């Protein structure tokens, strides 16, 4: 082992999942003591590649070298032994365990726990000090905020002696400020000689922290560059394979009468935790209102309440001047009938039934509409016909109304859902994460459809965690934090910094003081 050898090297790694070639001939070299970014769109194969390095999957072919030595990694155990640690996108923690128990899981140090836990406690104190990772080791993990859980994951890797730390989309659940804190931790790690691999699809993070960056596209590694020698535009182009218009072309909005007026809306979830706090919103015909925020700050609940899926705890929702809350119209079923469409945030969990045929998904939510019913019977020919129309108009592929929903790609599934909701010609459309997991081509198509609908005088509410998306399609932007609307901006006045501060819960009024600190 020589000092110049890279900390991690991959040579021609291949991985297939059935017909999907998730990683094609991937080669990669990561220098010791650097932060190496791997960037690519959703589904480009980044997570698969790192799961191979972590031994979660075994590569079909190819070599993995750690510190210049070939390593046979076929399970997490061997990867840990090679000094590789991973912080997964979805935390791999046992919620009912304490921090300490979570960290020792798998490296308990003997059959009896008592001594093992004592040594671990000692060692953790040292690690926490060394890397400025402050966590109470006796806290129950399920009760910790996400930012802290992530630190537990990092500690877990370090405790196992990781020299190479892989972080998979670590900032998805963090505010920009929390993300900055994470970056400071990563900086410290780099200073201490650790190697960090950062997987992300966010250009901002790559530019902010990495030394080198590798770009993946459709399962292939398309470029390796030094971060200082590149820029966002170039990386974006490499990611998608052609130059992208980051800004959607559109006219200025012509807002008209208010269609939906939300006042003082609050919602407590089943455990009595307030998820929405005194929300005030207005949605006008002919405009797109964007709701920005880190996921988990009440956006999902806002959509659920406005979509009639759950009743609010208090407050009022007026639609065309008529109060909805407490009226018998306030159910997901009847809201559709009076002109409120809803494209849900998660098409797999709610928008589609994956085991149903496309034509059966076409009537989801409209199953009792006279259009699809003949007396007692469901009219299957009408279902298929409507589905065929949707497929044609939205260019869904493959054009087969009898294919199961699970057989379509993400973008085509989203088109099926959008078609269903938009073709009912609602006056108000609620859209959650319109382009999550959708390929670039479809993103453009979907954004254009939404803008066309706006121009036709409809009111659209778009919830998205992608700041770029909100900034590019919305006319007005409201930011949610901890169940509240912390502020509202015209899209023209919005900058990433302004939104970022608001997403961290800092209100306009506080901003001056906070900024001064």
């Amino acid at each position: 082992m020589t000092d110049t050898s890279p900390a991690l090297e991959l040579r021609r790694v291949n991985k297939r999942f059935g017909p999907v070639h998730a990683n094609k001939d991937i080669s990669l070299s990561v220098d010791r003591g650097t932060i190496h970014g791997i960037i690519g769109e959703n589904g480009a194969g980044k997570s698969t590649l790192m799961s191979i390095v972590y031994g979660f999957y075994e590569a079909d072919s190819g070599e993995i070298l750690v510190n210049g030595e070939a390593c046979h990694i076929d399970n997490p155990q061997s990867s840990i032994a090679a000094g590789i640690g991973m912080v997964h996108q979805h935390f791999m923690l046992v919620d009912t365990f304490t921090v300490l128990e979570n960290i020792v899981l798998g490296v308990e140090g003997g059959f009896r726990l008592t001594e093992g836990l004592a040594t671990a406690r000692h060692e953790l104190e040292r690690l926490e000090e060394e890397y400025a990772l402050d966590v109470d080791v006796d806290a129950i993990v399920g009760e910790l905020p996400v930012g802290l859980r992530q630190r537990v994951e990092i500690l877990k890797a370090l405790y196992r002696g990781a020299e190479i730390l892989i972080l998979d989309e670590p900032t998805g659940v963090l505010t920009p400020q929390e993300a900055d804190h994470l970056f400071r931790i990563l900086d410290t790690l780099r200073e201490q000689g650790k190697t960090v691999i950062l997987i992300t699809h966010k250009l901002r993070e790559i530019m902010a922290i990495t030394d080198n960056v590798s770009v993946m596209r459709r399962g292939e590694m398309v470029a390796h560059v030094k971060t200082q020698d590149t820029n966002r535009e170039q990386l974006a182009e490499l990611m998608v394979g052609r130059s992208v218009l980051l800004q959607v072309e559109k006219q200025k909005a012509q807002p008209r009468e208010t269609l939906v007026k939300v006042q003082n809306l609050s919602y407590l979830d089943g455990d009595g935790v307030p998820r929405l706090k005194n929300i005030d919103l207005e949605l006008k015909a002919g405009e797109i209102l964007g709701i920005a925020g880190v996921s988990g700050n009440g956006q999902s609940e806002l959509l659920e309440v406005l979509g009639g899926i759950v009743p609010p705890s208090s407050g009022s929702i007026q639609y065309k001047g008529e109060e909805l809350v407490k009226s018998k119209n306030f159910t997901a079923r009847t809201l559709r009938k009076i002109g409120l469409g809803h494209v849900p945030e998660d098409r797999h969990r709610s928008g589609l039934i994956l085991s149903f045929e496309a034509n059966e998904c076409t009537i989801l939510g409209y199953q009792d509409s006279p259009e699809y019913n003949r007396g007692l019977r469901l009219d299957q020919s009408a279902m298929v016909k409507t589905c065929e129309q949707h497929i044609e108009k939205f260019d869904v592929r493959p054009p087969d109304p009898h294919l199961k929903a699970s057989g379509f790609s993400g973008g085509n599934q989203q088109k099926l859902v959008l078609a269903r909701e938009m073709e009912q010609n609602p006056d108000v459309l609620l859209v959650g994460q319109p382009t999550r997991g959708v390929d670039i081509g479809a993103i453009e198509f979907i954004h254009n459809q939404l803008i066309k609908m706006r121009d036709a005088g409809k009111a659209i509410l778009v919830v998205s965690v992608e700041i770029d998306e909100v900034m590019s399609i919305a006319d007005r932007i409201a930011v949610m934090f901890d169940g509240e609307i912390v502020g509202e901006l015209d899209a023209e006045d919005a900058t990433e910094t302004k939104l970022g501060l608001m997403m961290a819960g800092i209100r306009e009024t506080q901003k001056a003081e906070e900024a001064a600190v």
Partner: protein
Amino acid sequence: METFQIIVLLLDATLRVATPLVLAALAGMFSERAGVVDIGLEGKMLGAAFAAATVAAVSGSAWVGLCAGILTSLMLSSLHAYACVTHKGNQVVSGMAINIVVAGLAPTLGYAWFRMGGQTPALNGDSRFRGIVLPFAEAMRDVPIIGYIYAELISGHNIIVYMAAAAVPITAWILYRTRFGLRVRAVGENPHAVDTAGIQVDLMRYKALAVTGFLCGIAGTYLSTAHGAGFIRDMTAGKGYLALAALIFGKWKPVPTMFACLLFAFTDAVQARLQGVALPIVGEIPVQFIQALPYILTVLLLAGFVGKAHPPKAIGEPYIKER
């Protein structure tokens, strides 16, 4: 003194009824804490009861019978693991299938081997576990209250009753103070976390189910070679399900589960005495109501009317690596 004696005798009967429940419920605890639903406790017990009685009858040794009982239950447990862990089959269906197969197989083999209508020959002497008189039991009998309790309630049970009593603290220790217990609990809460920590989820579940099989084997052996004297068809008579109810009633924790077993066993002991007896205020309680009481209580618990049960989070879900 009369009432006191009745109470001691009732408690004595309670212990005897509770023994297989405690063992089976603890068995279920290992399985369910590891994330595998086990409604096959009944079948494993029945299989063990049959094997133990058969082998004890042939060999003349209760201990050899116990080994056979444990071995049989282990095999059934491995079958459950093979179906639910290796092949990701439905855990409820697998448990049910095991119960039905054993309910048929035990009398079928018994009939073919012994020609006694599906029973096994009556056990006596060394082929049966007999009561153990603890030291000084007779000498202390005359000491008021404590002596009587010691002689009647504590002393004089067979070895498996004491095994069951010891199994509770041992289980608690294993579950909360050892590496194995930590991993079992983790695998039932979040198998993905266990997998990424470099522990094989499937292997862990196999191990947990092996413990389940071991304990169920003792429970079944108790029925045919300690409590009874030979195998009778359907001799578990729902005890496996009752143990499952106790496990839920005890919220998947060792000591509360033991108390649930004792409570259920107590209602069983009491119902024999209450038959036809008019109680103050409520009058005569139908014996069937008392029989159904454990099940009613469990339903009430599950409905959240008496406390709230939080099952292990990953229970019932076969572990499949996600992409």
